[in-house]
């Protein structure tokens, strides 16, 4: 037929579309969603290098004039840079030290429970707080710590002491972050480790029992070393998420009295960006946060290799 051979690009493309038409159609909503709500905002990040004043909506970002690193320099020269970086690093270290390690200990202890019913009850109760939002957890905390009527204040008064409002005291705010984080997620965090413990070869334990090892020896000589590779992977994942997870918790728990010790990148982005409408400046702060997050992930992966475990890559 005809003069042209029908094997050109467009015929191939047409054939490709028709052949997989159902699959294309089925994934279309999902791809559209990711393009609009995930990838378009990634383009929007260029506003950090521009002077964008909300003219022309989201597409107005394209027209906004470039200003190079001005927004970043303004941030680095403000008092907030040192404060936010310091708080972020400190709070993250606290979280990794305490909130990350507690589910490992908890999982080992749960695994040592021999009565299945009791074990299941413990699991059900400790998993539960995971399903409460930070709004509710902070609400519980505020009520418990309330200096006028909380349980903590009641306890202090019973011993004739002046009640401390832990959530408004710069000395106690960070410990409160760690305690509430452990309360909320220690149980849920055990699931992965419990599964890993179940996967350990029982023969190792039997051999150790025959050699006369005690419970504690078996925990420290078998269970912990066997868990080390999953611990290292979970660690890197935790580091990758840590700066994002900080936000919801701190945002619901902090108040102006403790900004000095509680303010982190995202909370500051919210106040300057959403409340004061300094879009370009706060986008620059947000981008810097992503940069810090990336460095943390890269270095924790490196750390895992140094300690002789496999990392994520």
């Amino acid at each position, binding site marked *: 037929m005809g003069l042209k051979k029908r094997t050109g690009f467009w015929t191939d493309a047409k054939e490709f579309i028709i052949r997989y038409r159902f*699959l294309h159609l089925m994934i279309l909503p999902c791809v559209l969603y990711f393009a609009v709500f995930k990838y378009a*905002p990634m383009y929007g990040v260029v506003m950090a290098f521009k002077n964008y004043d909300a003219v022309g909506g989201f597409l107005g970002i394209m027209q906004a004039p470039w200003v190079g690193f001005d927004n970043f320099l303004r941030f680095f020269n403000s008092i907030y840079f040192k404060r936010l970086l310091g708080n972020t690093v400190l709070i993250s270290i606290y979280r990794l030290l305490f909130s990350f390690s507690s589910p490992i200990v908890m999982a080992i202890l749960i695994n*040592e*429970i021999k009565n299945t019913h009791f074990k299941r009850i413990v699991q059900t109760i400790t998993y*539960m707080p995971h399903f409460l939002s930070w709004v509710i957890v902070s609400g519980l905390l505020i*009520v418990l710590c309330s200096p006028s009527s909380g*349980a903590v204040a*009641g306890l202090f008064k019973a011993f004739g002491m002046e009640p401390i409002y832990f959530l408004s005291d710069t000395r106690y705010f960070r410990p409160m972050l760690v305690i509430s984080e452990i309360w909320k997620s220690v149980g849920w965090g055990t699931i992965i480790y419990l599964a890993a413990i179940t996967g350990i070869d029982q023969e190792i334990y039997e051999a150790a029992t025959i050699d006369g090892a005690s419970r504690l020896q078996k925990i420290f000589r078998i269970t912990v070393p066997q868990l080390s590779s999953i611990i290292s992977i979970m660690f890197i994942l935790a580091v990758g998420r840590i700066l994002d997870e900080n936000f919801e918790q701190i945002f619901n728990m902090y108040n102006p009295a403790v900004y000095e010790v509680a303010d982190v990148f995202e909370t500051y982005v919210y106040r300057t960006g959403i409340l004061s409408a300094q879009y370009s400046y706060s*986008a620059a702060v*947000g981008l810097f946060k992503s940069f810090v997050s990336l460095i943390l992930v890269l270095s924790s992966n490196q750390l895992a290799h140094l300690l002789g475990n496999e990392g994520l890559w």
Partner: protein
Amino acid sequence: MKRESAGDRIFQIINTVVMITICCIMLYPIIFVAGRSLMSDVERAARPLALFPEKISMLAYSFIFMRGSYVGSAYFVTISRTIAGSACSLAVTTLAAYVLSRKEYPLRNAFTVMIVFTMWFNGGMIPNFLLVQSLNLNNKFLVYILPQLVSAWNLLIMRNFFSSIPETLFESAKIDGANDLQIYARIVMPLSGAAIATIGLFYAVWQWNAWFDSLMYVSDRSLWTMQLFLREIIRNVQSIDLLDQSSSIGALPPAESVQMATIVVATLPILCLYPFLQKFFVKGVMVGSLKG
């Protein structure tokens, strides 16, 4: 063989005591707030550490539900978004997961990379905020559904579930002339009841607990969610004025009991359903962690 040494028995006893203590710590704040939300002010002041009321007073509850028109509407908004949001998310997620599990689909890897990339990199709060503004989603119910429609994590878990369905089922259906939509609807979906329940519950819990989108994008209080409303009540003791006071005459119950009652109202549905659904959640975490 089975005899335990004295040291092991002591360890067992200590471990049991520690576990019981931890369970009490987990339950205490919830019991404290729930119990005291039922007390009258006088009793609360007189018995600062008591957990259970001597005389039950429903004043705070009747206040937030009868006169507080916003609490009722916030509850309705939360229930609506949980149902509509999870249903939409589930539909889009399962359709996409089906496609990503089909090995013959040429764009499978490209789309998988596109989706996984968003698990590590995102535009951040400000570009997202401006985008939603520009799409004119402010103060619309859709803002609770669209911006968080698909979770990359849930999508990958779903794909793993679908990949474990034997390939022969697909082949024989293809030979019988079924297209992919039919295979999805008649074979894959009916076989994946547990997976769908798991992922649907993950979405539902997320929707139930969501508040930040409400805070960012919705200024119209009649469209606020329960969680945001609770947040405002907790943070501003004076925010009793958030409740519609037009019809109320006389003394208002103190802010504190309203705080407690609102916490209970926002928490109760999850606490009641959770024990029955726990196994689905645990399963989802395990499957997600194995390959993810």
